[in-house]
């Protein structure tokens, strides 16, 4: 059996999202092989003719129905999901979708308001996920599979204007500046070499 086939079986059985780490552990293969196989699977399944797709956020995968059949499946699973979201929620989710994983200070820098309560709200609703980022030594936020399913895309990269908004120069500058002055304390004096 190929790795791709095995991943296919596992995603089907579980129904829930599975991380590359988890897949690696069960399949006893290395991460790289798992990732390549999973991406291949996505390419194969995510075509309009298929009733089931494989969606991805971060480094996790999940099987979900093709959004084109929403009208039918919605009744079958008795979904009452309306997709109603308030403006603060929408704004926050948009920024996290395009710029995640993102820290709270970065998010607040873009929105210009404190985001503690709204983040908590979105975490409880399961539209956003938080995890500790080892490198940044901070909590980072990304969108959840539930939000992805709401949007009806297989991954965030499929969102309109993703490239532009994800790699915006202005934003980079803004966040860099912010990071420089990140600590509230005044920076320690730095001796400037005299000419």
């Amino acid at each position, binding site marked *: 059996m190929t790795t791709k086939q095995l991943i296919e079986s596992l995603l089907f*059985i579980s129904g829930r999202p599975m991380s590359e780490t988890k897949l690696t552990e069960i399949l006893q293969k290395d991460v790289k092989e798992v990732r390549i196989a999973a991406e291949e699977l996505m390419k194969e399944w995510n075509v309009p003719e298929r009733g089931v797709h494989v969606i991805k956020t971060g480094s996790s995968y*999940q*099987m*979900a*129905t093709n*959004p084109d059949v929403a009208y039918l499946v919605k009744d079958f699973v008795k979904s009452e999901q309306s997709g109603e979201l308030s403006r603060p929620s929408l704004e926050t989710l948009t920024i996290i979708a395009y710029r995640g994983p993102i820290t709270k200070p970065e998010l607040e820098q873009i929105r210009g308001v404190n985001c503690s309560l709204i983040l908590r709200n979105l975490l409880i609703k399961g539209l956003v996920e938080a995890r500790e980022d080892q490198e940044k030594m901070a909590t980072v936020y990304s969108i959840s*599979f539930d939000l992805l399913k709401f949007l*009806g895309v297989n991954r965030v990269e499929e969102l309109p204007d993703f490239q532009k*908004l994800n790699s915006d120069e202005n934003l980079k500058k803004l966040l860099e500046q912010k990071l420089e002055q990140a600590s509230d304390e005044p920076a320690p004096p730095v001796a400037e070499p005299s000419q």
Partner: protein
Amino acid sequence: MAYKFKLQQFEGPLDLLLQLIEQEEMDINQIALAHVTDQYVRYLNETKGILPEELADFLVVAAKLLLIKSKSLLPGLQVEDDDSSDLERQLKMYKEFYEASKMIHKMILKRHFSFSRDKMVVKIDKVFNPPKHLTSEKLRELFADILAGLEVWVSMEHDVIIKTVSIRERISNIQDMISTTATLRFNELMKTAKNKTEVIVTFLAILELVKQRWVAVVQENVFDDIVVKKIDGAAGEVVKDTI
């Protein structure tokens, strides 16, 4: 001077600023920011229902705007350029994501949802697999930790109820202080502010009093304390409602 525009509901300071600039049909730049400064401050003062916890965010933007405006009025004014171009950049950025959020909203409203299955499809035998070293004492410790962590959220909700001093209140406050002493030291005044928000509120209040020619501010030498003086013959009442 009555103003004729009517704003929709706004989310936070950047949204308010963006709406003001778009109403004037201006591009986002320093001129536009200076142009809408007064409107912004006025809105801030007349809007009811800004949560105290959000007020700080609104005031920080107000302070940046006032800086930009003073630069446009006094071209010779030497200030670090960072803050003003920062605000311009931030607003442009905000606008991009605001537009994107409208797109996202449209996508969601199409209800083009995917669905996944919650249950596993295999039959699962009942098992009992407790964590090896779990004891009731460990549970107790963990739960106590969790309870301690709740404090933040409970008190945060509580903070919302505590009223923060508004610009208007601060103005009457300063007037009272100055009526009894005739002069005030800026540093002394700032010491009465309890937090960053109140420092900015106090600063805005003094600027407003200067604008209305109720007080004058004097600084003898650079780095000296600034002295706030009541102007002789100033009308007794500040026209608070025009702020």
